[in-house]
């Protein structure tokens, strides 16, 4: 539900409404019935803005995916293409239209020859809507293909920042990190600046801008310039945000490489969250059907929305996974107690009241069931104690479950070994030696992305690897996975994820100590119960990016000048003049609101850490998070690969 967008301090529903209004306006421009042909990638983000009923209200009768060949026939007046500005998509559109025109002219000829006047379908009006921006390059391609004339409307739908949750905005621009840091293409930064201008138009000028990194500097420059240009046209609004913090992803290359250990983060690591949805293996969700007598298990993945509209999920998503089990069982007790209440309901009034609460309770119960299943699925992969159940299950006769569980046991062992190595790197243990675990993983031909994540992490935690060590890893990788991966390795070196150690000494330990990136804590802390520091999101490691954010709020960056100089890119502060009379008068005790913008991507664990800071009683700052893309280590490394991993055998 969209209402959850307005829960936080900043009502992001305003942004969504503005986007919806734009969409309606465009649809009305193409008057009459219409069919939409979708660039598949866009359906996800659009689902967050509008649902099908909105389109239907504006006479959208059919929807298709964009594909080569014919456009499916539909008795509509308009055919509207919703596409990203990509050349390969233009080629498909051109083919669609050329075929349509061919058939149509053929039909016309037949009808004319035969003087037939009845029932020839009128020609369609074609429209194209570029998301998030029109592209002259694409229009040129359409022109070259001779179909540009066929369009009645060419427009753009500026969807820069999409509200994902009440405190989260993403541009979902899949390659922004690669573009910015590998290809030096600043287009996505331009979109970022534009998106921030939109935000300021809706929520008021942000008086203070802080930043760290080259891209941050660039975005701030563009914003300040755009601000001067739009000076007269903006309606003055009381500022909602006090501060904007722009952070380059390459200031903190370490965090996304580590395995996220919050509930939401782990779901993303294991199953991948796309556009607020996760797809899960259906077996664990099959109970109901079996009760109904249906024998066959569902084979299609179960798809669930994940956002704060679901009360339970909002409660547990940012917890360390270790603490999720306890939270779920506590919730289970509350719910069953609530259901038990019916026995106490004696009078008609009481019964009536109970019944009125039923829908809410039932929703809570099914939400609990879902998350218990998800937690079980995740636990199968992460839990250490699987060994015992393995031995236990061995006794059972069902040979299939034996195989299944022996596989599970291996995954959980692998998960823990992997985690141990990560934590060693982050604490600076043996980062200058060959890591036997990485060697073993290569020997077993584990997925290449996993290997790259670990090697990059070792490099980052050691401020570069000794030339000999780097060459060794590179050779092992290339020999085992194929020579073509020299391209990927080169890319990783260019963005600084892999590098030979320079003569400079390793400054990672200094950064780690000064920023307290590793918290040696009590067992309880590491397990994620009652955390008092953001390090709980990685069971010990406090994400550098969030630490910088935290220190900016208190006591300020001046206290860490030395460390800031060790991190790449400039750090800066800018102020934007507010129109007279719009200075916010803060009530004593009122929190400040900071917008943190991650250029190049942010992980769910970092988001969890920022939410944790927002909720701290004496924190004094609330955070809204924005990013170019929600990432995890795997999707991030993948975006930097030149030869997407093909399965070996």
């Amino acid at each position, binding site marked *: 539900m969209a209402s959850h967008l307005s829960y936080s301090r900043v009502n992001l529903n305003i942004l969504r409404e503005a986007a919806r209004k734009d969409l309606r306006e465009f649809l009305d421009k193409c008057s009459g019935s219409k069919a939409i042909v979708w660039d598949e990638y866009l359906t996800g983000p659009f689902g*967050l803005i509008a649902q099908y009923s909105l389109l239907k209200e504006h006479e959208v009768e059919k929807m298709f995916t964009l594909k080569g060949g*014919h456009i499916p026939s539909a008795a509509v007046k308009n055919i509207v293409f919703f596409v990203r500005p990509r050349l390969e998509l233009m080629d498909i559109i051109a083919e669609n239209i050329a075929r349509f025109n061919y058939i149509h002219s053929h039909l016309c000829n037949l009808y004319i020859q035969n003087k037939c006047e009845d029932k020839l379908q009128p020609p369609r009006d074609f429209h194209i809507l570029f998301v998030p921006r029109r592209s002259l390059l694409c229009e040129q391609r359409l022109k070259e293909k001779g179909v*540009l*004339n066929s369009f009645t409307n060419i427009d753009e739908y500026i969807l820069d920042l999409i509200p994902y949750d009440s405190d989260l905005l993403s541009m979902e621009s899949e390659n922004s990190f690669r573009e910015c840091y590998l290809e030096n293409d600043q287009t996505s930064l331009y979109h970022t600046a534009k998106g921030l201008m939109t935000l300021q138009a809706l929520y008021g000028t942000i008086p203070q801008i802080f930043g760290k990194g080259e891209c941050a500097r660039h975005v701030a420059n563009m914003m300040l310039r755009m601000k001067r240009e739009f000076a007269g046209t903006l309606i003055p609004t009381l500022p909602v945000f006090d501060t904007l913090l722009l952070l380059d992803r390459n200031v903190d290359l370490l965090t996304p490489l580590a395995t996220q250990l919050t509930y939401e983060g782990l779901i993303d690591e294991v199953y991948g969250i796309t556009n607020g949805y996760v797809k899960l293996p259906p077996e664990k969700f099959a109970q109901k059907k079996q009760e109904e007598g249906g024998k066959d298990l569902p084979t299609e993945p179960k798809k669930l929305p994940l956002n704060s509209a679901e009360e339970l999920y909002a409660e547990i998503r940012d917890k360390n996974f270790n603490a999720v089990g306890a939270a779920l069982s506590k919730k289970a007790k509350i719910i069953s107690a609530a259901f038990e209440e019916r026995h106490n309901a004696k009078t008609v009034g009481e019964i009536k009241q109970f019944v009125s609460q039923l829908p809410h309770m039932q929703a809570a119960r099914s939400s609990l069931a879902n998350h218990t299943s998800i937690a079980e699925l995740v636990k199968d992969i992460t839990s250490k104690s699987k060994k015992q159940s393995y031995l236990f299950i061995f006794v059972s006769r069902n040979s299939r479950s034996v195989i299944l569980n022996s596989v599970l046991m291996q995954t959980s062992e692998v998960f823990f070994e992997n985690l141990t190595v990560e934590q060693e790197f982050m604490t600076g243990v043996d980062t200058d030696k060959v890591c036997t675990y990485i060697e073993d993983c290569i020997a077993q031909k584990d997925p290449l992305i996993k290997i790259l994540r670990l090697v990059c992490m070792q490099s980052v935690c050691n401020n570069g690897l000794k030339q000999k060590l780097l060459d060794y890893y590179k050779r092992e990788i290339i020999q085992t996975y194929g020579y073509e991966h020299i391209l990927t390795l080169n890319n990783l070196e260019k963005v600084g994820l892999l590098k030979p150690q320079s003569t400079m000494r390793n400054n990672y330990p200094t950064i780690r100590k000064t920023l307290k990136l590793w918290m040696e804590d009590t067992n309880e802390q590491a397990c994620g119960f009652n955390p008092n520091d953001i390090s709980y999101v990685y069971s010990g490691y406090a994400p550098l990016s969030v630490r910088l954010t935290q220190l900016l709020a208190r006591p300020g960056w001046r206290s860490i000048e030395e460390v800031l100089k060790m991190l790449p890119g400039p750090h800066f502060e800018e102020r934007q003049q507010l129109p007279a009379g719009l200075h916010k008068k803060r009530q004593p005790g009122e929190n400040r609101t900071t917008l943190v913008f991650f250029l190049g991507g942010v992980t769910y664990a970092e988001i969890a850490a920022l939410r944790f800071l927002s909720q701290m009683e004496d924190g004094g700052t609330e955070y809204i998070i924005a990013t170019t893309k929600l990432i995890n280590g795997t999707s991030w490394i993948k975006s930097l690969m030149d030869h997407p991993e093909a399965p070996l055998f």
Partner: protein
Amino acid sequence: MTRSKLEDDEYWNRSKLKAFTFDDEDDEFSRLKESKRAVNSLMIDVDDEDDNFEKVSWSGEPVGSISWSVKETASSNRSGSEPCFPKIDTTSSLSKQGSGYSLSSLFRAKSKSGGFQSFSESFSETSIRTYAPELRKPKSDRKDFVSDLSPEETVRRMQKGRAYSLEKFRSLQDKLLLLDEAVALYDGNVITAVLIYLKKSLNKDILFRELMSRDVALHHYVHYLKEMGEQKLLVELLKALGRTEDMALVQYKENLGMKDEGRRRDFLKSCLSLPFSQDDATHVQDHYTLLERQIIIEASDKKSDGEIFKRFPRKASILNMPIITTLYYSCFYHYGESEGTYSSPANIRKTFRISEKQYILTALGARAKLRLWFDVDSLFNTKNWLGYTKKKSPIGFHKVVDILHKNNAPISVLQEYVNLIDDTEVKLSMALKYKCHDIVINTYRDLKDRQQLVVYVPKLERDSVEYRKVQEILSNGQIRWKN
């Protein structure tokens, strides 16, 4: 009457004017029918396509790959079911504060032309349609048509999606001014459009030279060339910039898309002379050599009817496999061949400078898969100067045991290698894991750990050799147990 009627009929039928025939059997009408049929069949054809066409599931997922996408046809829509739709509630919660805004209007207040502007340096055939809506606009806006706009005004018009003309920027200086204005806007779309114009209208050497001092424009140009697949020009540009390693990699990258192995090999050969960094040059050389060998091996193995190929038919071709996989293949199918043949493990190992560790791991995997334990043994056998054979391994023996176990080695073989593990603790845990009873018993005995031994007894089969052995040890009064 009748006669005249007949006559009349005769007259009509004879007539060469066919305009007024009412005969049902008329040719032309049947011809029309025929074409109608043709038309119908065409229509049906189109409709059939409709069914094959994948529908969008409105659910936030790319559709193609997933089987559960709901087929959203018009009929199911009308029935009001939106099964896959995220339940976003719109009826309530319309924000009063925000509903007045629209994203585009925020910045386009003055420029909403509502129509469709074409991208064209000159007003070409699209113009009429394009500018029709503009005619209705106030006079001031008709400045669109005049071509005396400054570079700054021009790029602004481009940014706002209004009509513009670049043709009038003729001198180099004007063109560069235009480019600089575009860069100052930061809008990649506009920068690229200007670059396309410059590319068309400037000598490429001059363009390259000017781009060298314009970083941002240069990045966009490189990106544009990549996007358009203008490989040749890109290579020239990188060369002119002195980015020779990048240039070499960009060229090398082309091989990724090649399906035909012969063509790919020849292409890789042509890459050998490119200015790679030293390391990459070695790798590319190896890549070429590997593919060359693979092609030879593949050709001969494909038709080979050797014993091993009959017993273990090949599942896939060896072409384009990584070197370690190739080595595994060679250890599987070509073990023991002399170093002189391309397909022999020894030759591959030498040619591609494979480390001893990697070699042993790979050969071990392949020979164990074939359950040839003798070969496995000889991998680790070394003779010392006295002529005794001793087992040595560059990888820990616990890893050897793991690999053997994965390949279902019998307990006797496993036992032998577990025994070779130096570290007692590791040895014990491996023995426990793989049920090498004898080793477990011996180890506990050597550790003088009576308690553990007693605990272990139930895991043994009664009256087995090991069972009796434990009983013997436990009843042995000579041993001084530590517990």
